[in-house]
């Protein structure tokens, strides 16, 4: 009873907060309320770890989605802290009006609701609806500045996102059709727990074609190349807290959906193994994005491409499969979410301090804003995969386990990693040193969320607590 109460709290709190925030005109109060609601949701999701409700018809909590849900609510919480200080600055400079701010806060909580719903759903249709809702709310937020660029980005995101989501729905319908002869009509044929348990009896050719549509559909949402075209624009033109949530969380939700369907495929002996497809798309994204990092001139677009790169690594890891690679994939996903959102927090501060997103306009950060430069350098070291941060651990595990299976693939993986590493350090050097560019005023915002994220990433690189290891191992085994 208490457990299912927690489950509903995880979803209903953001929803109630969204309604309240939409009605509340005072923006200072509403940004506080935003933080509070996110904190309560995080608390509820942590409590879910200890008290798990039994899988129902519509909702499900297991080891796999517990990882995602805790990560989502945690980053949702830290981002709301960052957002409170960031948004105050946007209001001062007149980029947003109080009315838009109200809209922004309501949308933020609605997005949290949609992501939690997608992760907790035990029904493929419900999950699809939630992903669609998440897409629509982020479209609105990307376009919130109403400049030419942000409208273009929102439109592009909307069109490509809808096409992706349409293909995913077609895949969902095909999965239902494949399952229906074996488990009967109606709800059971759309319920994850029933589907996974009966996967062996499904019509394999139909399942194959369904997975192709699902991979294209949810792959578009995850930003895998060549379906990534919306991603750099959406990340660079929206408010920075949204870039952090998009990169850190929404991409993960799409990956989660793919993992569930991959489990379904693995349960059916006659269906093809989705591994090679995921490896190909992952490797393509990694290599493409790593080399596309070099010509970037806009700081937010730079890190958007870096997100494509890391989503590629994650898809690659789950494609390779096996206990070690799956573990590496999970760890990498967690570390990437934490690090990338921390990066977007710092980038938000840097852009506000320097008044430009152009890399050429941001120089001499080390002398003008030492503390910010320090945090930024640490973040970039972490995302580039330098030890002792957690991303190094996961990349190391991935490279070694790939090498054991296929040295050629490991070589390509290494090439992508090194290319991305070089590009990021090159850009970092250009921004930190040199003559300090003008327009430098002291940012008032808080650096606390950045250091919390960095501390966790550092900690994971040095020492992973045994319960976390056991938890990740059980998920890795489950993924096969």
């Amino acid at each position, binding site marked *: 009873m208490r457990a299912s109460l927690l489950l509903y709290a995880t979803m209903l709190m953001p929803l109630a907060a969204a309604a309240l925030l939409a009605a509340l005109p005072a923006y200072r109060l509403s940004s506080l309320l935003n933080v509070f609601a996110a904190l309560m949701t995080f608390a509820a999701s942590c409590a879910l770890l200890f008290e798990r409700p039994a899988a129902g018809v519509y909702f499900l909590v297991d080891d796999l989605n517990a990882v995602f849900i805790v990560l989502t609510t945690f980053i949702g919480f830290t981002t709301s802290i960052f957002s409170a200080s960031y948004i105050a600055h946007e209001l001062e400079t007149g980029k947003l009006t109080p009315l838009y701010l109200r809209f922004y806060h309501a949308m933020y909580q609605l997005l949290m609701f949609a992501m939690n719903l997608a992760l907790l759903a035990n029904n493929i249709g419900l999950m699809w*609806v939630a992903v669609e809702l998440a897409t629509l709310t982020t479209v609105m937020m990307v376009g919130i500045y109403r400049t030419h660029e942000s409208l273009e980005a929102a439109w592009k995101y909307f069109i490509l996102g809808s096409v992706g989501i349409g*293909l995913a*729905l077609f895949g969902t*319908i095909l999965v239902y059709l494949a399952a229906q002869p074996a488990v009967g009509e109606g709800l059971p044929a759309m319920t994850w727990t029933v589907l996974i348990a009966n996967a062996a009896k499904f019509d394999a050719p139909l399942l194959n074609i369904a997975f192709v549509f699902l991979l294209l559909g949810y792959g578009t949402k995850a930003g895998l190349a060549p379906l990534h075209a919306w991603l750099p624009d959406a990340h660079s033109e929206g408010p920075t807290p949204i870039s952090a949530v998009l990169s850190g969380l929404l991409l993960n939700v799409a990956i989660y959906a793919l993992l569930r369907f991959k489990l379904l495929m693995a349960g059916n002996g006659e269906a093809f193994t989705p591994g090679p497809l995921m490896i190909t798309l992952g490797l393509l994204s990694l290599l493409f994005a790593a080399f596309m990092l070099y010509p970037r001139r806009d700081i937010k677009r730079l890190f958007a491409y870096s997100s494509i790169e890391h989503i590629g690594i994650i898809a690659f890891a789950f494609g390779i499969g096996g206990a070690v690679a799956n573990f590496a994939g999970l760890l990498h996903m967690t570390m990437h979410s934490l690090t990338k959102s921390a990066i977007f927090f710092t980038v938000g501060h840097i852009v506000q301090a320097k008044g430009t997103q152009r890399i050429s306009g941001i120089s001499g950060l080390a002398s003008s804003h030492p503390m910010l430069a320090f945090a930024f350098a640490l973040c970039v070291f972490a995302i580039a995969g330098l030890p002792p941060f957690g991303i190094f651990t996961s990349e190391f595990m991935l490279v070694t386990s790939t090498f054991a299976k296929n040295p050629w693939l490991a070589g390509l993986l290494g090439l992508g990693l090194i290319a991305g590493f070089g590009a990021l350090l090159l850009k970092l050097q250009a921004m930190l040193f040199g003559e300090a560019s003008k327009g430098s005023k002291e940012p008032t915002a808080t650096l606390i969320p950045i250091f919390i994220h960095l501390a966790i990433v550092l900690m994971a690189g040095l020492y992973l607590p045994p319960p976390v290891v056991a938890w990740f191992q059980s998920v890795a085994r489950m993924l096969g």
Partner: protein
Amino acid sequence: MRGIVFDIAHLLAGSLVLVSLIQLYQDRLTSLLRVFAIHAIVLALSVGWQAYIQGAPHLFATALLALGFKGIAIPLVLHRIVLRLGIHREIETVGGIGITMLAAVALIALSMVVIFKVTPGASTLAREDLAFALAVILIGLLMMVTRRNAVSQVVGFMSLENGLILAAAGAKGMPLVVEISVAFSILIAFIVIGIFLFRIRERFDSVDVSTLDRFRGGRQ
């Protein structure tokens, strides 16, 4: 009896593909919207027929929604927007209409081949419905890709959704949740689009999305 039931279902689903093709060669926005209304009405008939032969009354709701919302309300509203903006004459396509039509025919063939190959086990009704639905989806996609105008991209998106609903209705016994949600999401999507059209006009006095591309300028 059995034969005529199938024939009517196929006739309706096939007509949907045909109307999709007709959409492709419209050269005015107003006529495109009229054809889209027909598209939605054919969909409503097709879903209604499925509701009748499957004995699934909830599908009638989906059919009515398709008829009232997409067959009447949306075309009317879009028509007014288009007239008010004074863009009813222009449809700019990427590539010629002839090539687009050929591509559409190829897509129809592709969807037949793919679906018939993978579903030897499924019932004939579901199979052919699914093949037609995939064809409608792919043609909708093609339309979105080959049109520059925001309104016709939206029409392309909506006909894609029509294909999805046809597929969902053809899947026997698929829970109501999904149909409602599909319809609901279209509603939301439409609100979004409405806002966007409004904003695009406000900013650029045009709904040609290539105007948007210009502003990317030298940004990388």
